[in-house]
C-alpha cells in the first residue's frame, strides 16, 4: 500500500483530532487554536496536492477502512472529481481562517473564540469527509457533522443571527432526514450502502418504484441543504447575519460540497441513463435551474442589504450549477461548465463576502446606499469587490466568463436554445445588481470621504484581511485564462472519465 493512499483518511481523521486538541489547548491560551488550525490545514493542503497528483497519474484511490472489504466495510474513494473539490475546500478554509484573524475579534465576543475555531475545524472535517467518502451512510454522518457545526457557526454571533439559525436547523434537519430516508429506501432495494456496489446493482431495479422514490428523496433533501430555488428560504437571513468569515466559507465551499452529493448521486450511484430514460428528470432540472437563476437575480436586485444581496446572488449561482447538472444529460459540456463553475463561484463569492465583511468592519455599513465613495476610502477592498463581481457577471477576462461560456456551449450542443437566452439574460441581471453597488462605490462622491482621504492611505485593514481577499480577486482573473487555455484539460478529461461521461476536451 502506497503512503499516498493513507492521505484521504489522514486528512479527515487528523481534522477531528485537531479540532478536539484545539478544544483542550484553548484552556491554556485563547489564541493558540487559530494557529493550530492554520498549520494543520496548510499541512492538509500539501497532502491534497499529493492526492491530486497520484489520482491524475496512477488512478483513483480506494481505501478500505479497518481493512474490511467494501460492500461490508466503509470505503473511501478519491478520484479526480474528489481531489479537485478537496483542494478547493481546503484552500478556501485556509483563506477563511486567515481572514477570520481580525474579523472574529470584531464580530464575535472574546469568550467564544476557542469554540468558534473548534467548530470551524469540525465543519472542515465534515466537508473533507463528504468529499472523500465512497459510502452513502458514511456520507450522511459527515453531512450531519458539517451541518450541525454550520448551524452553530451561524448562531455564534448571537442577536439577530439566532432566528435564521433556528430556521436553518429546522430546514437542515428535514433535509438530512430526507437524505437518510432515501438512502434507507435504496438500501432496502439493493442491500448495500457502497456507491460503487450500488451502481452495479441498481440498473436491474431502475423501474422499481422504491428506487425511484429513494432517488427523489435524496435529491430533495440535498436540494434543501444546497438551497436550490424553491427550497432556499432559510438561506438569505442566515448569510446576512452570520459572521462574515462564516458567510464567505459557507457560500464558497459548504454549499459546493452539498451540491457535490448530488453530483455523486447522479453520476456514481445512478447513471445518466437512469436520469434521462427512466424518470425524465433532466429537462425538469434545467427549467428549475432557469427559474432559480432568474428569480435569484431578480430578488437580488431589490435588496437593500449588501450581504443579503450577495446571498440571493448565491441562490442564482446555484442555479448555474443545477443547469450544468441538467444539461450534462445531453452534452458533456454541461459537466465541464458545472465543474468549472464550482471553483469560479467559490473564488468569486468568497471574495465578495470577504469584502462585504471588510466594509462592515471598517466603516460599519451593511446597506448598499451607505457605500458612497468607498472607492476612495477603501481602495483595495473595493477593487477586490469589483473584480469578483465582474467574474460573477461574466465579463471576458475573468473566471466567470469561462464557466458561462461552457454552459452556453452545453446549451447549444444540447440544442436547448432557450437556456442560452436565460444565461445571457441572467448576465444582464447580474450586471444590474452588481452595478448598483459599484456605482455607489466609485461614482458617487461622499463629503466626509474627501477629508478622510488625506488622513489615511490604503484601507486601514490588517494584511490578514486584505491578503486573502486580494488573492481570491487575482485568482478570479488567473482562472479565466487557465480555463480557456490547455492547462486544465488533463484534469477536466480525467474528471469526465471518472464521472463516466463520454467525450473529452
Amino acid at each position, binding site marked *: *500500500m502506497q*503512503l499516498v493512499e*493513507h492521505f484521504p*483518511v489522514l486528512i479527515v*481523521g487528523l481534522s*477531528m*483530532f485537531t479540532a*478536539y*486538541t484545539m*478544544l*483542550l489547548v484553548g*484552556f491554556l491560551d485563547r489564541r493558540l487554536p487559530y494557529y493550530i488550525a492554520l498549520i494543520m490545514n496548510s499541512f492538509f493542503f500539501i497532502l491534497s496536492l499529493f492526492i491530486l497528483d497520484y489520482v491524475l497519474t496512477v488512478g483513483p484511490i480506494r*481505501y*478500505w*477502512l*479497518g*481493512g474490511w472489504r467494501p460492500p461490508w466495510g466503509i470505503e473511501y474513494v478519491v478520484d479526480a472529481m474528489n481531489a479537485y473539490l478537496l483542494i478547493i475546500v481546503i484552500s478556501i478554509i485556509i483563506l477563511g481562517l486567515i481572514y477570520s484573524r481580525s474579523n472574529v475579534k470584531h464580530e464575535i465576543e472574546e469568550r467564544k473564540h476557542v469554540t468558534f475555531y473548534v467548530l470551524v475545524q469540525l465543519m472542515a472535517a465534515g466537508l473533507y469527509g463528504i468529499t472523500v467518502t465512497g459510502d452513502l451512510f458514511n456520507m450522511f454522518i459527515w453531512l450531519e457533522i458539517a451541518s450541525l457545526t454550520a448551524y452553530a457557526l451561524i448562531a455564534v454571533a448571537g442577536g439577530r443571527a439566532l432566528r435564521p439559525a433556528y430556521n436553518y436547523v429546522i430546514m437542515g434537519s428535514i433535509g438530512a432526514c430526507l437524505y437518510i430516508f432515501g438512502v434507507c429506501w435504496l438500501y432496502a432495494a439493493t442491500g448495500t450502502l457502497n456507491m460503487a456496489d450500488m451502481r452495479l446493482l441498481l440498473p436491474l431495479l431502475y423501474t422499481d418504484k422504491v428506487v425511484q422514490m429513494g432517488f427523489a428523496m435524496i435529491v430533495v433533501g440535498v436540494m434543501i441543504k444546497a438551497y436550490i430555488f424553491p427550497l432556499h428560504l432559510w438561506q438569505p437571513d442566515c448569510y446576512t447575519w452570520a459572521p462574515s468569515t462564516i458567510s464567505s466559507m459557507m457560500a464558497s465551499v459548504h454549499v459546493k460540497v452539498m451540491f457535490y452529493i448530488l453530483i455523486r448521486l447522479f453520476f456514481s450511484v445512478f447513471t445518466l441513463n437512469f436520469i434521462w430514460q427512466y424518470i425524465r428528470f433532466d429537462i425538469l432540472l434545467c427549467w428549475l435551474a432557469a427559474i432559480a437563476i432568474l428569480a435569484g437575480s431578480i430578488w437580488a436586485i431589490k435588496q437593500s442589504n449588501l450581504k443579503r444581496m450577495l446571498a440571493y446572488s448565491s441562490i442564482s449561482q446555484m442555479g448555474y450549477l443545477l443547469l450544468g447538472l441538467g444539461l450534462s444529460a445531453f452534452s458533456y459540456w454541461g459537466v465541464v461548465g458545472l465543474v468549472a463553475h464550482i471553483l469560479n463561484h467559490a473564488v468569486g463569492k468568497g471574495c465578495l463576502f470577504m469584502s462585504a465583511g471588510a466594509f462592515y468592519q471598517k466603516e460599519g455599513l451593511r446597506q448598499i446606499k451607505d457605500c458612497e465613495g468607498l472607492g476612495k476610502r477603501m481602495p483595495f477592498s473595493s477593487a477586490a469587490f469589483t473584480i469578483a463581481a465582474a467574474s460573477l457577471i461574466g465579463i471576458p477576462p475573468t473566471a466567470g466568463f469561462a464557466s458561462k461560456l461552457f454552459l452556453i456551449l452545453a446549451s447549444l450542443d444540447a440544442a436547448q436554445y432557450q437556456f442560452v437566452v436565460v444565461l445571457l439574460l441572467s448576465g444582464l441581471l447580474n450586471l444590474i445588481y452588481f452595478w448598483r453597488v459599484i456605482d455607489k462605490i466609485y461614482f458617487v462622491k461622499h463629503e466626509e470621504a474627501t477629508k478622510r482621504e488625506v488622513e489615511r492611505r490604503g484601507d486601514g485593514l490588517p494584511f490578514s484581511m486584505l491578503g486573502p481577499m486580494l488573492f481570491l480577486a487575482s485568482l478570479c482573473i488567473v482562472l479565466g485564462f487557465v480555463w480557456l487555455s490547455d492547462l486544465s484539460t488533463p484534469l477536466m478529461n480525467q474528471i469526465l472519465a471518472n464521472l463516466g461521461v463520454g467525450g473529452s476536451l
Partner: protein
Amino acid sequence: MTPERRVYKRDVIIDVTAKLMFPLTLLFGLYVMIGTGGTGGGFQGGTILATAFILYITVFGTKTGREKMPESTNTFFSSFGLFLYNGAGWLAVLFTFGAAQWLNMSAFWPVADYVGTAGARSFLVSYMVSVGIGLTVMASFVSQYFDLAWKEEDEMEEGGEG
C-alpha cells in the same frame, strides 16, 4: 407577582438510593462498553455512564454536581475519548509502517502476537474504540444536561427574562 419558589427538603431515601445506585450504574455502563468483547456498545455504555452523573446532579443539585464534574473535566473526557478512538486507528497504521489501513486492528502486531488476529481485533475494539466512544458520549451528555439545568437556574436568579 413572583412565582413561589419551592424548596425541597432533603429526603433520606432518595439520597441513599442515589448514592447506592451511582457506582452500580457506572459498573453496568462499563460492562455494556467492554463486557461483550466485540464491536458496539460504546454509545449505549456511554449513555448509561452519563445517566449515573445525571442522577447524581438531579438528586444533589446542579451546584454540587458542578463541583464533582466541572466543565473542564467534561471537555477533557470528550477530547480524550476521541483521542482513544482516533488514536487506535492511527496506531494500526503506525505499527505496520503504513501497510495496514486505518483502524485495521488485525494488523496490530503487539497484541496480535499474543491473542491472534481475531483476538486483537476484538480486544482493541472493545477496550480502546468502545471505551473512547463511551467517554465522549458520557462527557457530551453530562455537558448538555448541565447546559440545560444551569441555564434555568441562572434565569430564575435574574427573574426569568427568557
